[in-house]
């Protein structure tokens, strides 16, 4: 079988599996977040935490709970990293430097999982399991909670109460992420991923050199790393490391885990708003964007000029031989389209256009299909932009899912689309304007520019993947990227919750033949145009000086 055909078949199989699983999981998600019952374990958690699970929170209270929880998470994680030396299972690693610890704490709490450290040479098992892995669960659950709260804004009327953050958080973690991650971990162990509590031991390589190999609870970390669209690797090499991702089977399983919840949430959205076609339209746009990126990256890698590439059948630099071009570009597209940021190949080594494509994939706002929860609410905000413009063209005050988009709503939508470009472009501009941050760039010319742009795009959009080629462990990058992750996570969340509150306060507007239908292919095409023009064009000048300058000849 030719490599191209294999790539196509693998992508098609992935699409099929996601397509088969998203619907039932979506139905399950919808039930989880509308159920009146609490599990016994949940009741214990509520009692211990002093939480009244029956309290229906206004959007402000929902947001305050969320921010409070996340702030506490950052502090706990920061303390873990600072006190590592005195903790058990530390494998002898000491405290992380303050700026790096802050960056890491923010990174894992914001579901970004940008890593300016190398796991195997900085962290012990306790911090990995009780610190980072816990955030892998709850930061993903926070994203799901926000998406559910936003859906409630659409489905509820005459109230700005959006549910209970604590209940959503607990249910998302216990009923959704834990069971699926457990299954995922078993599958990965079965596939050959490492799972133990071993410390480093030395092995002798084929060439006779000595290597220190670290064991650890890898599979359990790996499952939630992908399922929660986190992406922070146990090892520095992330999913390119054979202990994290030993073979094409585990690679496929990881891809599936990454895409599962983002697409299932869209399905749940359709169920909850009572119109499955709405979900189909959103899915269509997400899948098209993702498909587009897969095609661009894959074609660009296969067609890479150069004798070495021709001989290898594609650009193999920075790729694992056990995955080849197809699995690597597929992984690169999926990981950047979902705010996961796990990598199984070096993005720095992608051909310029493929590198530009994965960069753009993040820059669009992580909506193809985006992170757990964040992908859905990000896409819904862009859908509101599309509805607003198109709604005018059919001669009515624009309305989406029965809610009118008036000045109050558009103000929030406008703020939302301002946030990430501002963070990303300002961050990149500042980094490039000063001598110090410029010193971290390892490559000259447009490739170096891409390295910085990629770092801020990844942080601002909470992706977490690194292009590489940038020495990011400096106080400047640790703090600047930390700020980008923090603002890029919580400003949009605050805005969408406010938006959900204002939508919930409205009564429903019944659809008529004069209402713009938002569940059609035509609307999907329009939404795609809005995503590319409104979200994409902003970055075109910057992209022109990076990947385009490097890639267009």
């Amino acid at each position, binding site marked *: 079988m030719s490599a191209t055909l294999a790539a196509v078949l693998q992508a098609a199989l992935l699409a099929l599996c996601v397509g088969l699983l998203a619907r039932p999981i979506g139905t399950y998600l919808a039930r989880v977040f509308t159920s009146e019952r609490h599990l016994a374990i949940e009741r214990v958690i509520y009692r211990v935490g002093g939480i009244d699970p029956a309290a229906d929170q206004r959007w402000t209270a929902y947001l305050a709970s969320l921010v409070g929880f996340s702030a506490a998470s950052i502090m706990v994680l920061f303390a873990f990293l600072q006190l590592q030396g005195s903790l058990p299972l530390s494998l002898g690693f000491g405290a992380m430097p303050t700026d790096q610890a802050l960056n890491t704490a923010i990174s894992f709490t914001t579901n970004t999982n940008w890593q300016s450290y190398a796991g195997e040479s900085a962290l012990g098992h306790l911090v990995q399991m009780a610190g980072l892995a816990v955030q892998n669960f709850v930061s993903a659950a926070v994203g799901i909670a926000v998406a559910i709260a936003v859906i409630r804004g659409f489905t509820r009327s005459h109230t700005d109460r959006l549910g209970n953050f604590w209940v959503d958080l607990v249910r998302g973690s216990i009923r959704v992420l834990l069971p699926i991650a457990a299954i995922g971990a078993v599958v990965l162990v079965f596939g050959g991923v490492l799972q133990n509590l071993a410390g480093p031991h030395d092995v002798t390589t084929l060439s006779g050199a000595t290597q220190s190999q670290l064991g650890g609870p890898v599979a359990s970390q790996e499952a939630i790393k992908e399922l929660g669209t986190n992406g922070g690797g146990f090892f520095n090499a992330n999913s390119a490391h054979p202990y994290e991702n030993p073979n094409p089977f585990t690679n496929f399983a990881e891809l599936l885990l990454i895409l599962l919840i983002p697409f299932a949430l869209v399905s749940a959205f359709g169920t909850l708003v009572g119109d499955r076609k709405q979900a189909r339209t959103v899915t269509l746009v997400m899948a098209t964007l993702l498909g587009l990126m897969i095609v661009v990256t894959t074609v660009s890698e296969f067609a890479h000029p150069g004798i070495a590439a021709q001989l290898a059948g594609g650009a193999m630099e920075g790729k694992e031989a056990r995955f080849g071009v197809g699995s690597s570009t597929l992984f690169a597209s999926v990981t950047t389209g979902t705010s996961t940021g796990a990598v199984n190949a070096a993005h720095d080594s992608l051909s310029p256009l493929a590198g530009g494509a994965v960069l753009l994939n993040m820059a669009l706002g992580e909506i193809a299909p985006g992170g757990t929860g964040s992908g859905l609410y990000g896409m819904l905000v862009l859908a509101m932009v599309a509805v607003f413009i198109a709604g005018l063209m059919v001669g009515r005050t624009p309305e989406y899912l029965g809610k009118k988009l008036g000045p109050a709503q558009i*103000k929030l939508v406008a703020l939302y689309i301002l946030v990430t470009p501002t963070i990303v472009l300002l961050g990149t501009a500042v980094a*490039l304007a000063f001598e110090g941050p410029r010193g971290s760039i390892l490559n000259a010319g447009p490739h170096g520019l891409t390295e910085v742009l990629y770092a801020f795009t990844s942080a601002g959009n909470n992706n977490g993947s690194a292009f590489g080629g940038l020495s990011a462990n400096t106080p400047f990058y640790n703090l600047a990227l930390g700020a980008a992750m923090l603002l890029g996570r919580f400003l949009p969340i605050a805005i969408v919750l406010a938006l959900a509150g204002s939508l919930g306060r409205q009564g429903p507007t019944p659809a008529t033949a004069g209402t713009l239908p938002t569940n059609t292919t035509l609307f999907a095409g329009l939404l795609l145009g809005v995503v590319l023009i409104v979200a994409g064009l902003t970055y075109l000048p910057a992209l022109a000086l990076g990947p385009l300058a490097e890639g267009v000849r």
Partner: protein
Amino acid sequence: MPASILDPTLLRGAVPGAVRKLDPRLMVRTPVMFVVEVGSVAATVLAITDPSAFAVGLAIWLWLTVLFANFAEAVAEGRGKAQADTLRAARTEAEGRRIDDAGHESLVAAADLQVGDIVVCEAGDVIPSDGDVVEGVASVDESAVTGESAPVIRESGGDRSAVTGGTRVLSDRILVKITARPGDTFIDRMIALVEGAARQRTPNEIALSILLSALTIVFLIAVATLQPLAAYSGGEQELIVLIALLVCLIPTTIGALLSAIGIAGMDRLVQRNVLAMSGRAVEAAGDVSTLLLDKTGTITYGNRQAVELLPAPGIDPADLARVARLASLADETPEGRSIVVLADRLLADAPAGSEAGVDGEASKVAPAGATFVAFSAETRMSGLDLPGGTSTRKGAGDAVAQWLGGFGAILPDALQEEVNGVSRRGGTPLVVAESTASGHARALGVVHLADVVKEGMRERFEELRSMGIRTVMITGDNPLTAAAIAKEAGVDDFLAEARPEDKMALIRKEQEGGKLVAMTGDGTNDAPALAQADVGVAMNSGTSAAKDAGNMVDLDSDPTKLIEIVEIGKGLLITRGALTTFSVANDVAKYFAILPAMFAVLYPGLGALNVMGLASPESAILSAVIFNALVIVALIPLALRGVKYRPSTASQLLRRNLAVYGVGGLVAPFVGIKLIDLLVALIPGIA
């Protein structure tokens, strides 16, 4: 004849206005254009300090961009101003002949008339202010307000009692009770409206400008942060080039035309003789999903005509005709008169010597001593009480049955069948009955009044349905009659035997379901419903209470116009959406013009983006800026006339408008910029 919106005189008149609007304090209200103005100032300074054909050209065209935007707004305002001048002339410094309590008459300046004052107006007098006729009837020339030269009747009581200040009494004498405070008359409000002085931005316009401001800020950031990136790459850009890029990227097209679109939308209503008291109502008109239409005058021709007399079993048709005629003699309504006409014709055909024979013209008046029993909403009957003790009545079946019951008589079943039969056929049945001095009463038969549905209404409602608008016919008829007419006219629903409070309840019910409701009304008892409706169009012929309650006034008093108002509301929103789409889609081509111009020197590979093959970096940038400015001018007619609204479903509309303005917006600038570049390249120092 109102001037065309693109009348050369008006266009010339708008030029000084366009320059005056350069005042930054005014410009800042349109953030997009304010950014362009700031850019123009900066470009001018740069062109002076470092002159070149390129810099000077850019500065000029940036200023023209701002001026074109201001020009669009000034043109839109121009026609309103001209109209306001005409109205001001109508608002003469009239004097009112005020009558005090003692009956003395004194001349008072119109501006000094207070609410509640009584003035007398005779033939030739200009009515000094708005008011209600409290005594008399007169024909009034309202052309100063409505432009319609045919005089209208204004009379005390009823729904035609309102008079407007500035109109002229042509005949007779009326007493008018002033209802408007000085300076707040209908004409004053109209002047403020057409001049745009009272114009407030509508919710949707505000929402759109927020979105446009956000896009402006995004591109401001994108361009501002580009310089450090360019500097790092070794291709630092001139400030003037960055200004050009910014102006091309921000949504100037829609930003420039947004306010003109709003003014022109209001103006389109004024041209159709509809005064919208708030722009909000115009927008709401586009959103309406339920139309309440009065049957009479809107759906049907209004005057129901007697078409046949159906006698009860055993009753001589001539007897029925005679009683029906008697009962209608004093009835001045068109229906009443049509009964007399029909009865006369039937009686003339009757065999000679019949006791019910006609004795000439003299009989067209009621017999001496007879008392007319007028129709009332309570009794729903009218008739004559004759001196001899005989009474004749005609009225709704159940009302007459009740009346008969008072005499111990009943409505025969066979007659009830006739009543139902007429109703089923869409007619209005009137039962004719009489009672004698001896206290006997009997029903003689049924008058069939037919209601004629206006031509084309069925198609109109079909159209409305495809637009997602449900029509509800409001009628005082009984449910059977209403159902038949509703079916014939093709409305979606009807409200029969409607009292004002039923109308109100219906509006509330629709609104609770999230629907927007539009209605027309003219009577005082319509006022609460007019106020409750989202779009309440009061007939100018109606009472002042109705006019105050509604948010629009139709000077032509044409209830069918509601449909046009909905279309204008939709057209306004469509125009905004279309130009926004066009504006945003234009950015793609501009990137292809400007990005290679900026960076192809640095990275020759980026020259591949110059798909238009523009002559030089300077000509490319200048051409993009010129295109950006000219497209504003090119779209002024569209903005002012509005995108034509063709009734169709939302999907069809979206598909068409997306094809025209979305795809058109993508393609047009590629062609336009290329053509401009061919000319610009001829300028020495550019190519």
